[in-house]
């Protein structure tokens, strides 16, 4: 009997796979949150630098915060940070299958957020 010659065909992956299905888009958005969280943390470091350099420098920093670029960044960063938080809390039960752990995380998050806002003097 004749041997069938094999020549398996390998399909290339590329980078467009991220658009193949909404779940991959959502995954990429989740991963991209790192740019905003990292970026915000760097702004915090910059703020520390200005704080260390005295009241004048700190005032300049607060003024920069009011710039349109800063406002835009903050809005985006907040959105992405919230997306990171919710995806993290929703995935936690898979890694740590403890009853009510997701709910406990959301509750803890609310508690921490309210505590910080209170001690910051927001209300």
């Amino acid at each position: 009997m004749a041997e069938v010659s094999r020549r398996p065909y390998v399909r290339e992956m590329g980078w467009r796979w991220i658009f193949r299905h909404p779940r991959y888009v959502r995954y990429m958005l989740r991963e991209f949150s790192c740019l905003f969280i990292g970026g915000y943390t760097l702004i915090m470091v910059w703020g520390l630098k200005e704080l260390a350099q005295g009241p004048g420098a700190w005032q300049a920093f607060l003024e920069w915060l009011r710039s349109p670029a800063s406002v835009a960044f903050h809005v985006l960063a907040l959105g992405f940070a919230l997306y990171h938080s919710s995806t993290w809390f929703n995935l936690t039960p898979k890694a740590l299958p403890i009853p009510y752990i997701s709910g406990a995380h959301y509750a803890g998050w609310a508690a921490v957020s309210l505590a910080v806002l209170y001690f910051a003097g927001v209300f």
Partner: protein
Amino acid sequence: MIQLEVLRYNPETDAEPRMQRYEVPYREDWVVLDALNHVKENLDPTLSYRWSCHMAVCGSCGMMINGEPRLACKSFLREYRGVIRVEPLAHFPIERDLVTVMDDFMGKLARVKPYLIPKHEKPLAEGEYRQTPAELKKFKQYSMCINCMLCYAACPEYGLIPNYIGPAAIALAHRYNQDSRDGGRAERQEEIAATEGAWDCSFVGACSEVCPEHVDPAGAIQQVKIKSTLDWYKEHLMPWLK
């Protein structure tokens, strides 16, 4: 009538795959596998594909249906609108038409030592292993895998990193690690705690989304990551603990 657009590839005559259209009857109770069988029996006997049980328990008929890894026997024609695109499972080399090369998957399953490795030799006289329902619950869902490879087709990391051991293999290792009768975790760690083991996973979660048996390999992999991390820090920071 309904149209299927099916990937065709003949390694002896084709330089690369092409798509071929078939018109098949539309029946309310037909699945894509029925449509493929109709093609093979009536229109084109050269079409090659794997299938067996036709009831979503054997795992043979995994394919990309409209770009999503599905079991062909569980995908009803009535779920779809327009032309139905049928391609071989992603991330595997194409052998012919809808048939993929499975060797990599089979090798990886075997590498995780998917069998009970008891802690001590237990003579027959000592009787059977007894397990409580709670002990069974710890590993039962991971034992439901039908080796259909949909998770590998869904996992972008497996597509990007061919050496990645993959969701089903890790879930299978986890099934044995979680079994109270087993004592072989240390041996399996050599495979699943390697870089090509759980660490190539970036928790996309697609594997668990497409799994027809709700095994949740993504959950298994994250649990392996956490246990492996705790092991690592214990071993390196507290080496006196054995």
